[in-house]
C-alpha cells in the first residue's frame, strides 16, 4: 500500500482566515532578522573581511587551544581567534586583516606559520584574502543577491503579471532576510559558501510560490464567481501535498549534506534547510495573502458581490 493513499488530494485548510497571524509572524521574522543583522551582525569569513584563515591538524590531540591562543596573540597581528573544528585536534585560526596592503597579509601568514613550527601535523587549509579581493567579493555578493532577486521577480512578472511579481518579490525578500537573520543569530561564518546558500534559497524557495501562483491563475479561470479568498485557499490546498512532498525530499537530501558533508558544508546546508522551510511557509503565508491587496479579476463578475479587499500582511 502506498502512503500517498493517506494523503487527501484536496485538503480543506483555511489559510486565508489566518492572515492576521501570518502577518504578525512575518513581521517578527523580518524585523527580528533585520534587528539581529544590525545589532549582532554577520560573522564574516575571510572571503569578505579579508585576512587569513588556517585550518591545522595539531601534533598533539586534543589541541592545546589555550597555548596556541597565547602564542598567536603575542605576534602583534591583532585579535587572533581559534576554535576547534570538527575534531579535537583540528583548529581553525582566524587572523584579522592586517593594515598595510596586500603584502602585509602574506607576511602575517608567514609569521603565523613560523610561530606554529613543530606543532602542526598538517596544514589542512590556508586562505589569505587581501583587502582588494575582499572588497570586490563583498560587492559581488551584494550585486549577485540583488540581481537574482530582481531577475526572479522579472520572470514571475513576465510569466504572470506585476501583482504576482510583486508578491513573489516580497516572499523572496522575506526568505532571504530570514536566512541572513539565521546566520546572524547562530554566528555561523558568513562566507562565499553561505552566500551560495542564500542565493539557492532565493532561487528555490520561489518554486513553491510559483507552483501556487500557477494554481491560483488556473482556479481563477475555473471559478469565476467564487470569492477571491476561497479561490486562494483552493489553490493552496490543491498544491499542498505536492509542496510538502517536494520540500521533504529536498530536506532529506540536505540532511545528508548537513550530517555527513563535513564542516565546510555544514553551515551552507543549515542555511538552505532553514531557507527552504521558511520559503515553503512564506508561499502560503506571505505570497498568496499579498495577492488580495490587488484586483485579481479585471471586472467583478455580475451576480457576485464585489469582494472586500482587506490588506493581509
Amino acid at each position, binding site marked *: 500500500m502506498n502512503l500517498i493513499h493517506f494523503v487527501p488530494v484536496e485538503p480543506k485548510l483555511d489559510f486565508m482566515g489566518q492572515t492576521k497571524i501570518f502577518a504578525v509572524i512575518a513581521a517578527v521574522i523580518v524585523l527580528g532578522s533585520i534587528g539581529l543583522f544590525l545589532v549582532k551582525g554577520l560573522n564574516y569569513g575571510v572571503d569578505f573581511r579579508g585576512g587569513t584563515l588556517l585550518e591545522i591538524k595539531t601534533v598533539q590531540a586534543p589541541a592545546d587551544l589555550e597555548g596556541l591562543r597565547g602564542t598567536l596573540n603575542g605576534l602583534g597581528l591583532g585579535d587572533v581567534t581559534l576554535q576547534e573544528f570538527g575534531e579535537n585536534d583540528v583548529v581553525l585560526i582566524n587572523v584579522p586583516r592586517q593594515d598595510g596592503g596586500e603584502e602585509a597579509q602574506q607576511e602575517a601568514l608567514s609569521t603565523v606559520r613560523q610561530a606554529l613550527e613543530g606543532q602542526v601535523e598538517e596544514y*589542512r587549509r590556508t586562505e589569505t584574502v587581501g583587502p582588494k579581493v575582499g572588497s570586490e567579493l563583498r560587492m559581488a555578493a551584494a550585486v549577485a543577491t540583488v540581481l537574482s532577486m530582481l531577475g526572479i521577480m522579472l520572470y514571475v512578472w513576465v510569466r504572470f503579471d506585476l501583482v504576482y511579481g510583486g508578491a513573489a518579490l516580497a516572499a523572496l525578500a522575506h526568505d532571504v532576510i530570514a536566512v541572513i537573520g539565521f546566520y546572524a543569530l547562530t554566528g555561523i561564518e558568513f562566507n562565499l559558501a553561505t552566500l551560495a546558500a542564500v542565493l539557492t534559497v532565493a532561487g528555490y524557495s520561489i518554486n513553491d510560490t510559483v507552483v501556487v501562483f500557477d494554481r491560483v491563475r488556473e482556479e481563477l479561470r475555473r471559478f469565476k464567481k467564487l470569492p477571491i479568498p476561497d479561490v486562494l485557499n483552493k489553490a493552496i490546498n490543491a498544491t499542498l501535498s505536492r509542496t510538502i512532498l517536494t520540500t521533504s525530499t529536498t530536506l532529506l537530501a540536505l540532511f545528508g549534506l548537513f550530517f555527513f558533508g563535513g564542516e565546510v558544508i555544514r553551515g551552507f546546508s543549515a542555511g538552505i534547510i532553514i531557507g527552504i522551510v521558511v520559503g515553503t511557509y512564506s508561499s502560503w503565508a506571505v505570497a498568496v495573502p499579498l495577492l488580495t491587496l490587488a484586483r485579481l479579476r479585471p471586472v467583478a463578475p455580475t451576480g457576485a458581490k464585489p469582494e472586500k479587499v482587506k490588506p493581509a500582511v
Partner: protein
Amino acid sequence: MLELPRWQRITILIAVVVAIFYALPNVLSRSTLDAFPDWVPHDKINLGLDLRGGAYLLTEVDFDALEAEQLRDLSASILVLLRQERIGVRGLGVRDGQVQFALREAGRGDQVEDLLFRDYPDLEVSRDGERFVLGFTELYLDQQRNNVIEQTIQVLSRRLDETGTKALTIQRQGFDRILLQVPGVDNPEELKALIDQTAKLTFRFVLENVDPERDRVPAGASLLPTDQVLPSGEPLMAVISDRVIVSGENLTDAQPSFDGGLPVVVFRFDAFGGQRFCDATRANVGRQFAIILDEQVISAPVIRDAICGGNGQISGGFTVDEAAQLALFLRAGALPAPLTIIEERTVGPGLGADSIAAGEIASVVGVALVVAFMAAIYGRFGLLADVALILNLIIILGVLTALQATLTLPGIAGIALTMGMAVDANVLIFERIREEVRNGRSLGLAIDAGFKRAITTIIDSNVTTLIAAVLLYQFGTGPIRGFAVTLSLGLASSMFCAILVTRWMVLSWARRQKRGTRLPIG
C-alpha cells in the same frame, strides 16, 4: 496516445547511452580503462583543488612598477642619444610619470623633436620651446600590458614546471591579474618564493669615481644597495650606471655549480650577449662592473681582462638552494613586471581526501533517503521516479566528465541538492495525475493531462532557480562556481528526466495494464 513520439524515444535513448558512456570511466580503475580501445572516453571527472589538494594564487601584475622602470630606461637611452648628437641637456629625469628635460642651447629643439620622432614611434612628445615632456602612448601601453601578461604566464610556467609534468593552470583574469592553480602543492611558501622575484639580471658598470656618501648621483645613474652591510646595519650603497651592458635575456643557459667549494651559478651568453660583453670588457679593463639582480648588486668584480669566452659565473655568497633557484630563474627568464599575491588558498591532501569522502557519503545518504521516501510514498510510480533520479545522476556525471568541468565540494553539494529538487517535477506530475483520476478521467487521459498541465509549472519553477544559479556563477569565484555548475546542470537534466523519461516509463506501464486498472497512486 500511450506512446511517446518516435523522435522523443530516440532522443532519450541517445542521451542515456552517451551519458553512461562518458560517466563510466569514473567508476572504473585505471588499468581497466587502459585496456579499452582509444575511441572510448578515458577521462575521469576533473576534481577541483579543494578536493585533490593544491594551491590557488591570484596575483596582480604591477604595471605601475613596470612603467616606472621603462621611463627610467627611456630617460637613460635619451641621454645616450643626445650625447651622441652632442646636444647638451639639463634636468633630465622622470617626474610625474613622464620623462622631462630641457636643452642647454636654444634653437636645437626641432632637431631633437625629429630625433625622437625617428627613434621612438611610441612616444607622445609635448614640447614648449626647449623643454620636453615625454610619455608613452595609451595604445602602446595597452599592447604592452597584453604582452606582459602573456610573457608572465610563459615565465611562470617555466619556473613552476620546467618539466611540464604538473597539471598546472595559469590563466589571465580580467585586466591585470593572473590566476595560478597548482595541484598537489600544500606548502604555498615554496610556490611564493618562485613567483615573488622578478629575477631581472643586468650587467652594468659601477661609477667608481662617484662617492655614494657625498656626491650627487649623476643623471643616468642610480644608487643601488649591495649585499655588504655597514656597521650601522644599512647596506653599503653603490652608484651604478643605468646603461645595461648585457641583461638576463642574453643568457642561453644557467646552472648551479661550485667554485672553490662555494656555490655559484655558471651561465652562457648567447652570440649577441657574448659579443657585447666581450667588447665592453675589452674597452674597460681595470674598471668595476656590477651584476645586478632586481635592483640589488649581488657582485661587483673588477675587469682584469677582456671576457670573451661567452661563459661566466656569478658568485654572490649563495647557499646551495639559492644558487639552484637563481639558475632556475635565469633559465626561465625574468618576469617583465613584479607580481603581488592578492588572494591565496591552499588545501592540504588530508582535507581534500576527507572532503571527497564526506561528499560521497553525504550524496549517497541523501540519494538513498530520497529514493526510499519516493518508493514509500508512491509505490510503483515512486520506483519509476527513482529510476529517473538515478539516470539524472548519471547524466550529471556524464556531462561533467565530458565537459571536463571542475567538480568541487560545493559542486558535490549541488548534485546532492538537485537530487532532492529533481523529485519535484515528478511529484508535480503524479499529483496532477492523481487529481485527474479523481475527476473521473480514464487512465490514459489522466496521465496525458497530468503531464501536460504539470509541464509549465515545472519549467516556471526551475527557471527561477536557474536564474539564481547563473548569477552565482557570474559573481562567484573558485569552488562556488562549481556549485552553480552542478546546480544548473542538475536542474536541466532533472527537467529532461521528468518530462521525457518518467513519462515514457509511466506510459509503458499504462499500456501493459488491462482496461479499468486503477492507478497505483489514484
